[in-house]
């Protein structure tokens, strides 16, 4: 039962200027769920890539069930029984479930997918869910896509399943389903290795936990008996203030933002907002909870001026924003942190300074007429990076050289330093570790203390509950209800999001 399924010894991977993995050891047993935790940039993802055959290590050995192996490609790792489920799903969106499942391992040159079709349906059945093999992947929910990924690795004979932040994009219910599924897999003698930033779920779902810090494996502990505080301390190397349950009752002031009767279309031209009313007051964090794709993105984009309303009004501190473009709204004091940092947030191939300048075009401390004030910009960028505690902290570096979590900090830093009256936050701590989350939470608190209004969209219910003063639940483009974090539970909120209660 508990022999070693996979052992990594002395894995070292150097990149120019950085040691991503420095003699990392890790051993996962047959039949266990093993979690890997660590701060952003601790080397977890590199280790996973080594394990999946995507990145060859410079040094170290990998043993699968006691036999030493070396992987030249993802195919080698798959052949050794290692199945990867990446954070960004590796499914082709326009293909069907079946096409995605067979891709790269097709039964023959021509057709003949019916045998596989039956196996997919059957395996899904034994794992306790159903899936239509002919659905186009694009039309599936994130949770369903993840199941397709898992199915695919299992059909290819994976004995060791490696998942990179599998719950980052799931609702609490979906996460619970996922861990049930994973538990079933390890009972059948497989091994599961997963990365997560959510310490509570790591403790609840895993058997043992390996902690990484600064490219090294610090220790491996049993989940039973450990606390979130223990893990956070091991990860950061010092005491960490975990986000507390509910924030202190600050006095909300005058309304900053008034949205009334807002209607808008999605990219596909179907109604995404069907009459939304909400008010954000000065010094208040208004949370928007909901299963992704229920109009959150369209709501935020409408307010930011990136999507036209088909009806309704948006009023910022008394001024009707009808017809104002995004630049005018930024000038009026709206700052937007989009959900996809590289899609709409930052230009990866430009430096941090330049990215800050792009977001603050009308700040005359940074521009003199058409000219950039390089010194002022450098100082400003330095200050922002220092406050957000990014690593590296040189504002002259390209954004693409930062890890995802640190890019997120740059984006957030720009918003918090912009002097905005209203900050639109989408998934602010997605992909951030506890240390970084601490900083984000701190920034939100100090912004509200200055009287800034914050509208927060998050699929992480813990974050939503800890940061918000009030939470509106959005479902199918309508506000389905309002709750106060102190008077509800994540369970209740999750049910409301799914359309059960309220």
């Amino acid at each position, binding site marked *: 039962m508990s022999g070693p399924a996979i052992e990594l010894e002395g894995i070292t991977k150097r990149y120019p200027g950085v040691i991503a993995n420095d003699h990392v050891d890790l051993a996962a047993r047959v039949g266990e769920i093993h979690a890997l935790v660590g701060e952003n940039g601790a080397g977890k993802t590199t280790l996973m890539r080594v394990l999946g055959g*995507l990145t060859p290590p410079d040094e170290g050995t990998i043993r699968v069930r006691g036999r030493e192996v070396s992987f030249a*490609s*993802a*195919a080698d790792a*798959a052949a050794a029984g290692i199945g*990867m489920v*990446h954070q*960004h*799903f*590796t*499914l*082709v*969106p*326009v*293909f069907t479930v079946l*096409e*995605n499942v*067979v*891709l*790269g*391992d*097709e039964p*023959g*040159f*021509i*057709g003949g997918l019916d045998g596989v079709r039956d196996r997919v349906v059957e395996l899904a059945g034994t794992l306790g869910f159903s899936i239509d093999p002919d659905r186009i992947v694009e039309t599936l929910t994130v949770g369903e896509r993840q199941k397709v990924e898992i199915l*695919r690795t299992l059909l290819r004979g994976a004995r060791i399943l490696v998942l990179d932040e599998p719950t980052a994009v799931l609702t609490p219910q979906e996460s619970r389903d996922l861990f049930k599924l994973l538990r079933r897999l390890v009972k059948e003698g497989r091994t599961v290795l997963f990365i997560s930033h959510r310490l509570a779920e790591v403790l609840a779902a895993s058997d043992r936990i390996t902690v990484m810090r600064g490219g090294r494996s610090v220790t491996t502990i049993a989940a039973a008996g450990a606390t979130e505080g223990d893990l956070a301390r091991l990860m950061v190397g010092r005491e960490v203030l975990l986000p507390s349950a509910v924030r202190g009752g600050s006095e909300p002031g005058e309304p900053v933002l008034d949205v009334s009767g807002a209607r808008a279309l999605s990219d596909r*031209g179907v109604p995404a907002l069907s009459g939304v009313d909400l008010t954000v007051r000065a010094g208040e964090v208004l949370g928007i909870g909901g299963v992704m794709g229920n109009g959150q993105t369209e709501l935020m984009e409408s307010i930011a001026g990136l999507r036209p309303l088909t009806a309704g009004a948006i009023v910022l501190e008394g001024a009707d924003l009808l017809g104002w473009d995004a630049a005018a709204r930024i000038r009026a004091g709206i700052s937007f942190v989009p959900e996809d940092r590289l899609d709409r947030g930052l230009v990866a191939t430009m430096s941090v300074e330049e990215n800050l300048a792009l977001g603050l075009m009308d700040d005359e401390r940074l521009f003199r007429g058409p000219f950039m004030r390089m010194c002022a910009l450098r100082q400003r960028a330095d200050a922002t990076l220092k406050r957000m505690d990014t690593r590296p902290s040189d504002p002259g570096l390209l954004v693409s050289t930062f890890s995802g979590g640190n890019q997120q900090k740059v984006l957030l830093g720009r918003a918090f330093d912009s002097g905005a009256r209203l900050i639109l936050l989408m998934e602010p701590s997605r992909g951030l570790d506890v240390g970084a989350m601490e900083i984000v939470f701190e920034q939100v608190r100090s912004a509200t203390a200055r009287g800034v209004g914050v509208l927060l969209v998050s699929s992480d219910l813990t974050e939503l509950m800890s940061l918000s003063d009030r939470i509106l639940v959005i479902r199918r483009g309508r506000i389905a209800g309002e709750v106060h974090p102190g008077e509800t539970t994540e369970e209740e909120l999750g049910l409301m999001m799914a359309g059960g209660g309220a």
Partner: protein
Amino acid sequence: MILQDVLTATIFAATPLLLAALGGLLSERGGVVNIALEGIMLFGAFAAAAVTLWTGSPLLGIIAGVLTGALVGALHGTACIYLRADHVISGIAVNMFAASGTILLLKVVYGTKGSSPQLGSLKLLGVPLTVHLAVVALAAVPLVWFLLYRTRFGLRLRACGEYPEAADAVGINVHGYRLAGVVLSGVLAGLAGVFLVMTAGSFAKHMSAGRGYIALAALVFGRWRPVAVAIGCLVFALGRGVQDVLELEIGIPPQLSEMMPYLLTLLVLAVWPLIRRGRSAEPPAALGRPFVRG
């Protein structure tokens, strides 16, 4: 009578467009922009003419045209895939090289600047080769469809054009498949060039006359789907059919009638999006994006 003439002229005008457009489709579904169709056609045409003249065998000429197309395709593919050149720039380079290179070859090999000597009889089994090639071009439509949607190769090629990271993650050689797509595209575009030579009976400079670009337009019009692309080719070829009739039977000056195919292409491309408003063209998601393992 006129209708029949228009129809025949349309089928023959459509043949090189079909071959080139289906070729472009194979390249672009794999993720490589192929604006080089025009140049590949020219090189293929020259090779077919030269080898036919040299050996006296039009069949060897066809093979030479196809192989040359494959080679030029491989060149464009290597530049785009392995050297990560900009796909459009590389394609333009191929086209300019072909336009002047074939003239240079004409001068060196045949001592002329305009066209090669006549090729003589171009028949197989008593039927003109152009008819054979027209049949091949029409047959290529279902074949390319089958290749894309019913074979392992097609599935993998499309994955490389849509989301190369996903293909890589399941162990598919993204670069290899993309190159294969471009080389196949060269084969078909080369064959389009062969057809032009077999129609004219000799090689003439600039004889592709923008057909590679019209084929690209058909590719966009047909949203990278074989059957729709073929329909696009037929629509654009209709312009050529109408041109012939206008010129030969009604007597419109050639300076005007020669504009027809291009005018029709422009018109269709401009009006079509208005007709099917809201549904934008859907190119392969990773078209023109080099794949670098992260």
